[in-house]
């Protein structure tokens, strides 16, 4: 049959496309795991690390709403400590380095948060 070549070509293209990540990995070499750089001596963020890794976006979101809409600035953490809810004041005191901290994971996972649509991006030496 004249169409066998056509079918096999189609099949090959499909399978090749499906395996695109494998080709990409083979060409680029295996990617390094991101290591967000933390410039602080503190042992823990406002909440435990595992919690922060998963839910920091929600925490920041809550902070923003509480501060902007209800004018409350004090956050009571799970362990009873209180911190001031402020991205530039609190967060960035330990994580001033957006490129080396925030972007490390965000770029890795193609996340594009809109924090910096209102806040001024920290000026960093690159």
């Amino acid at each position: 049959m004249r169409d066998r070549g056509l079918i096999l070509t189609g099949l090959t293209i499909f399978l090749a496309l499906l395996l695109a990540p494998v080709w990409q990995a083979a060409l680029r070499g295996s990617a390094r795991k991101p290591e967000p750089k933390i410039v602080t001596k503190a042992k823990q963020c406002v909440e435990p690390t595992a919690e922060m890794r998963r839910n920091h976006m929600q925490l920041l979101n809550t902070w923003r709403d509480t501060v902007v809409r209800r004018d409350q600035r004090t956050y009571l953490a799970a362990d009873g400590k209180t911190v001031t809810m402020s991205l530039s004041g609190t967060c960035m005191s330990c994580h001033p380095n957006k490129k080396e901290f925030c972007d490390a994971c965000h770029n890795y996972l193609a996340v594009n948060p809109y924090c910096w649509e209102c806040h001024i991006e920290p000026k960093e030496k690159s």
Partner: protein
Amino acid sequence: MRVVWSLLLVGALALVGFFGAQAGGQALFGIVLPYLAMAVFLVGIAVRVVGWARSPVPFRITTTCGQERSLAWIKASPLDNPSTGLGAAARVLLEVLTFRSLFRNNRSELRDGGRFTVSADKWLWAAALAFHYSFLVVFLRHYRFFAEPVPAVVAWIQGLDGFFQVGLPVVYVTDIVLVVALGYLLWRRLADPRLRYISLPADYFPLALLLGIALSGVLLRYVSKADVVAVKELAIGLVSLHPTVPQGIDPLVFAHIFLVSVLLTYFPFSKLVHMAGVFLSPTRNLANDNRMRRHINPWNPPIVGHTYAEWEHEFHDKLVASGIPLDEE
């Protein structure tokens, strides 16, 4: 009952993934089974397609859904009754991309006094299209876990999908559409007695499985958030053929991955192969040029009918009597 069993089965499978990984099966559910499933999928699909390709298409049996190309002044229907290979290719492509045949769907109903009414019925078409496209987008979005750096187009798809910027993490439209469409497709099988009658376990199970995959994914994104950095490490490890299971992968991730592995394994043995089969349908992918170009049947059997000579021999006297000319005259 069939639907209950299917849902229970998928629920059980999810639990197997969830607890299996916690009970020390992380490498099994994170590495071994995904690899196996992918291998079964790739080989299975290839075997299926090659199997179809090995059987020839002896006759050109296009289903014509429009005017043939005949006289120059009669407007032919190039898509629904293509007379060229290009037209047939376009017909298949549009079938795949827009489900044109399903778009024709209508509903015939018998009214009092034995009258049939026909009304348009686009729900199946809309739900099918919604499901397939949202699944495609969700599938493509997952590329962010498997590629480093993430291609710009994936980021672009994500941006578009989360265009409304509702909630945090931003809610993807396709997540909602996927679950709603699957829900509708499952519901219609149950609600319509006719469909319930024709539905097999093999119809409920894939729907339940896809729902399980979609819902576990939704949970992971919006509710019980996973450590996505760790997940990506796992994924990159798989595709770079240096698999490792990093610390901190949530059990629900394993449940999600296990359900996907089940889907990949099940796929080549099920009706889901329509994904590949739709391209090969002889009533759709052949041009209706039967009388223009001879179609070759590779196994055309050497059959000879009742020949003229045999016929003339039998009816010789009657032919002569009625004055019908014989062959030698």
